[in-house]
């Protein structure tokens, strides 16, 4: 797990995304246990309440589940759920940002499409 402490998002959201990333990458497999809130907060030196908030967000979204007295586990369909969610975000986070950035650099839409084609064909 790596947190990059970027400055645009609250810490708990960043933490939740990091856990999601690690699930997508297969670092945390489905039905496997993830580190405890204490371990996470110690490791990143963040308040346990913040860590708890991030983890609970994932529990609410059905990505993690809690086994009483044991710890947190990855749900069986976690990957699929994350894919669905990320796809939705992809449009907002990447496409819109891409177009905005392009506008700043005065790159036309045609140029963008050419770039994408070129990249995809490789």
């Amino acid at each position, binding site marked *: 797990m790596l947190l990059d402490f970027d400055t645009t*998002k609250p810490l708990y959201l960043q933490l939740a995304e990091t856990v999601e990333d690690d699930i997508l990458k297969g670092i945390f497999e489905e039905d496997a246990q993830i580190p405890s809130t*204490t371990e996470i907060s*110690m*490791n990143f*030196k*963040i308040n346990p309440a913040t860590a708890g908030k991030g983890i609970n967000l994932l529990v609410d979204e059905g990505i993690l589940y809690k086994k009483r007295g044991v710890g947190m586990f990855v749900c069986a369909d976690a990957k699929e759920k994350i894919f669905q969610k990320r796809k939705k975000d992809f449009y907002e986070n990447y496409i819109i940002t891409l177009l905005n950035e392009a506008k700043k650099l005065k790159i036309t839409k045609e140029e963008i499409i050419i770039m994408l084609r070129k990249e995809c064909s490789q």
Partner: protein
Amino acid sequence: MSKIEIKDLTKLYGKTVALESLSLNIEGNKIYGLLGRNGAGKTTLLNLITNKLFPSNGEITIDSETVFENENALSKIYYMSEFNLYPPTMKVKDLFKWTKEFYWDFDVEYASHLSDKFGLKKNKKFRELSTGYASILKIILTLSSNAEILLFDEPILGLDANHRDMFYKELINHYSGKPKTIIISTHLIEEVADIIEEVIIINNGKLMLSDHTESILSSGYTLSGKAEDVDSFIQDKRVIGIDTIGRFKSAYILGSRPLIETMNKHNLEITKLDLQKLFIQLTNS
């Protein structure tokens, strides 16, 4: 769960005002950051909470009991003071032994374990410890006291990067195991920004701000871009501070964030408030 209530607290040293009508509620079981510049009144406040000093005016209570000469209230606190309050010739292991006499829940085993972890030699006398190890000893005494309220005054004084890291991790570990009220007084904000759940900022003896760390950080935003663009946007906003580097300007603004898309259209960039920057702006007088 212990609550500290501070009402209208004033402390004068002769004609110097160290604290001025400060009122503050500290709820139980949270980690607080007491932030202020050097001489802001942080240590005075902690010394008043632990009845090391007496207020010129106002009152401090712990769970509704005054702290003035109150055994019950005071025994709930362990205070890591920046004063060296320990007998200079007493050995570290004897300090553990005697502290156990007065703090019945003091965990000698844990203290011993932490000493090994931090490399503190238990046979050394207090006066033989370097600044860093004196801080480490005081940290260990505080954590092992098992008091309901732990006050740390500049805990990382003289600690190297490794020991600082170990301290923060141990603090979180300790707190996770047994939630309690913790106040960390420091002027090194960046290091504690993510650990503290609540922020108290004092400046020139006055309370500037007391709120959840997260609400503070989400109560405003940083806007940066070309100076003219920033200026035209911030005219009707509550600006708490501005940094300018050439034609580039960053403004720290309180209020809800505008949409990123609209800002991008104006070639302005939005980032979240940074506790350290906010602190500098608030205490810059």
